[in-house]
């Protein structure tokens, strides 16, 4: 089987396993009626809800219905969406199908994650290349400090610090919300910190490897300008580990956005998910998790695809793992 087709099938299988896991945790380990109504609900109310949701049927039958609905894009209806904090959402009534609501939040999350990724990636490539060009210089130390700090800091705390400095003390930027480019700056910076540290470290070590190879000496010998040697010749060949780590970081960004969106009241899928968890809106939570997980799986697949394009020589081993 061609490599990419096999990877695609594996991704589908993983998605299926995840959906089944969501079902098992939601229906078998937990009692949906109890989750949604809380322990203080009366027995009649619980029974009524179980009846409405079809929870009295045998579990395998529920599972088939659950899968059948998902295939048709039906994640159920929201349990208490009408209570949302968002003014435009408040107009809509309870009982709305959850999937369109989840999907409507995607653009905001994409905007945030995309901005953060572009920011982190471009800065990381420049910093990493400079660090590799001048080993043991101050810029090399800076890259080391940034990458160490970025794995040690809690993202939401960094966001709160930025709020304290730029919103509370200096009064330059809004503390949260959505709408203008000013609203985007702080959340994007917060989210970019971690990938910046991780990617710049990988760029640095990949570039150190490449710059010590003979073809670089050859390029220099024939008089290619140094910036061209580094940013064109070497960077192109160092791109595989860089793409891998960027892909990993992108899937991290999608979940990291959850916390950052909560801190900055950014109306993306993460904030919706956290709100729904708080409101015990099980169908919405399930839909949110499935959509985010599907995105993460898709990103991983895209990274593997980028691999084969970037380096056709890569021989894929039989296990289908990354080389």
């Amino acid at each position, binding site marked *: 089987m061609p490599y990419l087709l096999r990877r695609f099938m594996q991704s589908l299988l993983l998605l299926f396993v995840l959906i089944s896991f*969501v079902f098992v*945790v939601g229906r078998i380990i937990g009692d949906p009626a109890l989750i949604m109504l809380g322990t203080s609900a009366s027995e009649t109310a619980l029974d009524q809800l179980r009846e409405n949701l079809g929870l009295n049927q045998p579990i395998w039958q529920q599972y088939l219905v659950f899968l059948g609905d998902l295939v048709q894009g039906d994640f159920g209806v929201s349990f208490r969406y009408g209570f949302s904090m968002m003014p435009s959402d408040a107009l809509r009534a309870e009982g709305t199908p959850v999937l369109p609501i989840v999907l409507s939040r995607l653009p905001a999350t994409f905007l945030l994650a995309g901005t953060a990724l572009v920011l982190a990636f471009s800065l990381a490539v420049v910093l990493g290349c400079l660090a590799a060009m001048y080993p043991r210089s101050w810029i090399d130390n800076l890259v080391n400090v940034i990458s*160490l700090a970025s794995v040690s800091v809690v993202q939401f*705390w960094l966001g709160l610090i930025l709020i304290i400095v730029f919103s509370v003390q200096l009064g330059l930027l809004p503390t949260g919300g959505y709408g203008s480019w000013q609203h985007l700056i702080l959340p994007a910076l917060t989210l970019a910190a971690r990938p910046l540290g991780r990617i710049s470290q990988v760029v640095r070590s990949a570039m150190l490897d490449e710059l010590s190879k003979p073809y670089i000496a050859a390029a220099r010998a024939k008089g290619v300008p140094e910036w061209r040697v580094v940013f064109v010749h070497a960077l192109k060949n160092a791109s595989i580990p860089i793409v891998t780590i960027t892909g990993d970081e992108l899937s991290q960004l999608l979940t990291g956005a959850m916390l950052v969106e909560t801190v900055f009241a950014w109306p993306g899928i993460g904030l919706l998910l956290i709100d729904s968890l708080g409101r015990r809106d099980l169908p919405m939570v399930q839909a949110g998790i499935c959509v985010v997980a599907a995105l993460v*799986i898709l990103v991983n697949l895209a990274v593997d695809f980028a691999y084969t394009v970037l380096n056709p020589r890569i021989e894929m081993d039989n296990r289908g793992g990354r080389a």
Partner: protein
Amino acid sequence: MTAVDAQTLPQDEAHDRAAAITSRAYFGALMRDRVAFVSAIFLGLLLIAALGADLLAPYEPNQANLRARFVPPLGTARDGGFHLLGTDELGRDLFSRLMHGARVSMSIGLLGALCSGIVGITLGVLAGFYRGLLEDVLMRAVDGMMALPSLLIALFILFVIGPGFGNLILIFTLLHWMVFARMARSLTLNHQQHTYITAARAIGGSDRRIILTHLLPNMVSPLIVLFTLEIAVLILSEASLSFLGFGVQAPQSSWGLMIARGREYISSAWWLVVMPGAAIFLTALALNLVAAWARAITDPVQRWRWLTPPRRKSQPIDDED
């Protein structure tokens, strides 16, 4: 001995010196790497503060004192009490609360890493030792689980089974064993090719004996490095989950929960957010630095440079060669 002598010292001699590794040599190496040394001291103090919080904390952590509300760091309350890191909205001393919070955050990090380590290492060693179907299934599971967003899944499970200390440990074990399994398996595969394992088998050592007395002791140092890093990762995860309200619950308090509470007063009492986060940051930083040091010191290729006493003024920290 002059500096010139030192530079011409043959490497072989250095290797001979490294052969006699003692705990004193390790300690000496730690002393020479100033950053790692400071980190280790910090972690030691933190451990003492966490363990002895009942005795050492200057104030009762849950004692509200309305005459001492919102005292800034290094401030003195109206009743004359000095507060190193200030007080919160109920007049509770932040420094004392941080010490008690350290106990929760650290024990979740340690216990979580320990449980996931035990599960992961057991599975990984068995997979690497017996190969076959077990290895196939296990490594597929590891690949699959590593590809999923773990924070999201942790939130969902905690949402269903409810938050709390014990459930957090359970979740961390469930979602973090893979890193240990992956490393334990590759280490086992690596070591199994060595002659000493063949020799142990030749003299009739049982599988159990080979694994317990030959394989595991040789795998300890890289696993300890991973363990240290994992503690940092778990402390950060715990903070995130507690911040979102699905981790530690009041009246227990962790650093993450303290940030979540302090957030309400972000415009008036910045220290309620800054201090607990700084504690998390410094702890994770120290753990990462100590892990980096431990990795360098246990790497056979470069440890001779660390374990032999310095003859040049500076010892380069080098991760490329």
